[in-house]
């Protein structure tokens, strides 16, 4: 009796698979997986998986080992890429300034400490507050932010694709640059934050101005701030604070790089990679079912009133193509 029962279960399973994929009487001659109710079910499964990946961050042991970003970005690479873009546009390359780098590091650490991702902190601190705290007196200053990028090249490409970030990179008023590349946990996931700060010290600007106009024309700080605000720019921080912060995070200042590959606990996947892989699996299942459904019905010459399989296949192929080539990373 037991054997018979097992055989029946196996047969039921085969019948169910057949019902799911093969057009037949039981599914009204349309693979059950392609019915609207099945699509709704798959949509909920996809949302559920997405929500699961988002909630993994609440399990520190798991997400640190499995999910996160393993970035190869270094401050030197960012500076090199930035200067390359400037040279290509006929501008002077920027010189690294340790005070600006310290300001960038303070800003990155502040974002990790207060868990925000913005130019202005939740307590209202502007980028130029960090620059001032680093004792950098600026004439003009600016800030670009990036996160979740794996290579400096794609990050620079993203900045250059955004008119406002590009304007910062290619601003001929800037003379100096400071970069901080910091690994840390933001919004629940291990990531790499990049803070790029630009500036021109007030002294340098006065020198230039004195050549053009007269030595008596001084630029006061209010003018500098007004200028910075007009151009949407921001600043630095205190040296001893930077030393404190360096102990808390894994900062990468220009000239003091830590190749990420040397870190022992590099995560296996990024959350985006995991979500993309799952969604691609779902799409593959649907597309293969659509092809099989068309093949079976084509052979049987069965008439039925359903949507166009070819159109569905093309749409899902486009979605698969976009998922494969979708690039992660965020800039501000």
């Amino acid at each position, binding site marked *: 009796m037991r054997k018979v029962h097992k055989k029946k279960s196996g047969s039921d399973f085969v019948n169910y698979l057949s019902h799911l994929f093969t057009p037949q009487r039981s599914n009204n001659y349309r693979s059950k997986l392609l019915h*609207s109710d099945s*699509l*709704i079910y*798959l*949509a909920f499964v*996809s*949302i559920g998986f*997405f929500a699961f990946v988002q909630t993994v961050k609440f399990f520190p042991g798991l997400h640190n080992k499995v999910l996160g970003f393993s970035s190869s970005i270094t401050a030197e690479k960012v500076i090199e890429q930035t200067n390359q873009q400037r040279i290509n546009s006929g501008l002077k390359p920027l010189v690294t300034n340790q005070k600006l780098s310290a300001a960038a590091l303070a800003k990155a650490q502040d974002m990790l400490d207060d868990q925000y991702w913005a130019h202005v902190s939740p307590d209202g601190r502007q980028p130029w507050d960090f620059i001032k705290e680093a004792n950098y007196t600026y004439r003009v200053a600016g800030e670009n932010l990036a996160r979740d990028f794996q290579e400096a090249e794609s990050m620079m490409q*993203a900045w250059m*694709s*955004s008119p406002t970030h590009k304007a910062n990179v290619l601003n001929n008023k800037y003379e100096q640059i400071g970069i901080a590349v910091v690994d840390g946990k933001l919004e629940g996931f291990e990531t790499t934050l990049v803070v790029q700060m630009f500036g021109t010290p007030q002294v340098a600007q006065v020198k230039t101005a004195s050549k053009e106009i007269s030595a008596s024309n001084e630029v006061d700080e209010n003018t500098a701030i007004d200028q910075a605000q007009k151009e949407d720019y921001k600043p630095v921080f205190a040296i001893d604070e930077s030393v404190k912060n360096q102990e808390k995070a894994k900062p990468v200042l220009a000239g003091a790089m830590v190749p990420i590959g040397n870190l022992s606990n590099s995560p296996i996947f990024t959350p*985006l990679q995991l*979500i*993309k892989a799952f*969604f691609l699996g*779902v*799409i593959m299942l649907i597309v293969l079912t659509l092809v099989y459904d*068309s093949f079976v019905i*084509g052979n049987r010459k069965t008439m039925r*009133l*359903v*949507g*166009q*399989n*070819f*159109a*569905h296949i*093309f*749409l*899902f192929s*486009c*979605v698969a*193509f*976009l*998922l494969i*080539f*979708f*690039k992660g*990373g*965020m*800039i501000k």
Partner: protein
Amino acid sequence: MINEFKKHKLSYGFLILFLTVTSFLFLAAWPDRRYQRYLILLMSTFYFLWGVIIHFKRKDLNLKIFIEYFGVAVFAGLLLFLVTV
């Protein structure tokens, strides 16, 4: 499937052209995720309307087909939307 394509070359040609152009615009819009989401909405809406119009012209539009195109368009859009979050 092939015969269906041959019978409605113009309609399918328009669909392929539109989806191809929208796909490349989507990739070109990176890293502007808000613009990418508008394109997802455009792509899904277009697909749904395309399906409804095609079947309406063929005089075989019914509620089941209407819901099928709506479901496919929403599902495809949902997958793309979630990766841009």
